[in-house]
């Protein structure tokens, strides 16, 4: 598997993307390079468990599985059945805290 030929394709992609998604991509890149993305993922995971969100989602998943039957249910069934409610159930406090963390990180590492 050759991994060295990403260069040209990347330029091409950037032209096709909107300004906003370019900025998103740049931020994402910075987060990964500094290892912050993994830390944020862990922080989010811990917060969502703490506030009971994961347990709520587990219950929602169980409902979908009961409906479809355990032998037939696919990951897509679960994703489709649970995503809208799941997103809505994330507490504002958790969203705020993550945003604050990201802002602080960007302020510290702005180029």
């Amino acid at each position, binding site marked *: *598997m050759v*991994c060295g*030929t990403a260069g040209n394709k*990347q330029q091409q*992609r950037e032209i096709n993307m909107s300004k906003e998604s370019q900025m998103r991509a740049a931020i*994402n890149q910075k987060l990964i390079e500094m290892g912050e993305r993994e830390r944020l993922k*862990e922080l989010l995971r811990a917060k969502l468990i703490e506030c009971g969100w994961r347990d709520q989602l587990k219950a929602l998943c169980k409902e979908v599985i009961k409906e479809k039957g355990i032998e037939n249910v696919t990951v897509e069934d679960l994703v489709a059945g649970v995503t809208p409610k799941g997103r809505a159930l994330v507490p504002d406090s958790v969203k705020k805290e993550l945003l604050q963390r990201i802002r602080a990180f960007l302020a510290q590492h702005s180029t």
Partner: protein
Amino acid sequence: MSPAGCSHVNGFKVDNWKQNLRVIYQCFVWSGSAETRKRKCVVEEGGFVPDALKITFKAKSCMCHMCGAHLNRLHSCLHCVFFGCFSKKHIHEHAKNKRHNLAIDLLYGGIYCFVCQDYIYDKDMEQIAKEEQRKAWKLQGIGEKYSMWEPTKRELELLRHNPKRRKITANCTIGLRGLINLGNTCFMNCIVQALTHTPLLRDFFLSDRHKCEMQSNSCLVCEMSQLFQEFYSGHRSPHIPFRLLHLVWTHARHLAGYEQQDAHEFLIAALDVLHRHCKDDNGKKANNPNHCNCIIDQIFTGGLQSDVTCQVCHGVSTTIDPFWDISLDLPGSSTPFWPLSPGSDGSVVNGDSHPSGATTLTDCLRRFTRPEHLGSSAKIKCSGCHSYQESTKQLTMKRLPIVACFHLKRFEHSAKLRRKITTYVSFPLELDMTPFMASSKESRMNGQYQQPVDSLNNDNKYSLFAVVNHQGTLESGHYTTFIRQHKDQWFKCDDAIITKASIKDVLDSEGYLLFYHKQFLEYE
């Protein structure tokens, strides 16, 4: 969905597929942190990807080849270099056009099969995924991920052969059982109640972790294991612990006989015998008695730091000794309790809000950890001054055990008198040990006098789970225990009689042995 994965992976599992898969995990799913750039290049099994390059891959190339997005559940094709969104079906198009059936989710590492149209769980691939994640997390200093218990083949067999299941509801009384008094054996019964309700100890024994290597029938750990089985059997009739009593008499001669004994002495003797019998399990490793890793040491052993400071050169000599319990002097004993050391101006610590005058557990701990002048008749040889000098000594906690047992010294056996001190000492439900730690003392010495209670540091927070009380006099008395079940239900254990108790009952009781359990446990 078969646990053996799907057959479509067989086309992928050729040549050096394991190494290729590892590289994908390392570069695109769980790449190490920036710190790894400084490290030497890692040579893996034939493959060779410098760490710095891994970060760059993840950062710069993880975007959809069709629309450039890095979100939308990005997947990477396993057969060629192609990244595509899952939500927008870009990866699906690629799979159809190129007949590449497998893709990997770059967020969680799951493997998707386009033929089965679902994520598949191939044992070999799962193994690689787990190992790579553990490696990456370690590099980033995130620590071990908690993974749920999965039964082994043998355990599945046992579960199928034994279909009876017990459900623990909020009101069930499983774990509660009375103990018959075999003749002044309440000193033993009260400790047994405390031990059978120590969560970690319970978990250890109920999951059959003790593998006995003692030849004879006199292993106390085996008997303990049996005891847990009895307590959690669901039987409500009181248990008769005659075998336990016999073993205790055999291994702790000083407690043998039918006279009344001290519960605290029994606790220490029991822990000692259990510790010794556990050590026989790891007989091969137990060369150093101070570095035992038996369950008793894991749960009960803490480290007590003793600092002796020379008053002349201010040199400090430090020793750390293991301890299973902390014995605290009480006001009213022949050793002076008040005044406490400077700085203890009655500030409220641990929410002790009893009317002034009443002694608290925190008062006792403060007294225990105060600097004590050793006096001119007890000069210590100072290695700095090379002569005998006066010194001060101070005790602090170097390392806290998971279960902390506080022994209030109510029985005075001095030369002049033998009596019981019945002074009321109030103790809290939740206890923060931070002010008594060796590390806090260091900060105090560096000028920060009043340590603000750090609400984010949960390491030193403890919860009360058992209280042993003594009623009566030194010569003749009776022991009972309050134990905690299900977070906030308390029960009083009086030999064979178990009754429901309120938190107020517990906190108003005199208190002789107080058992606290660490609130938050970290995985190593």
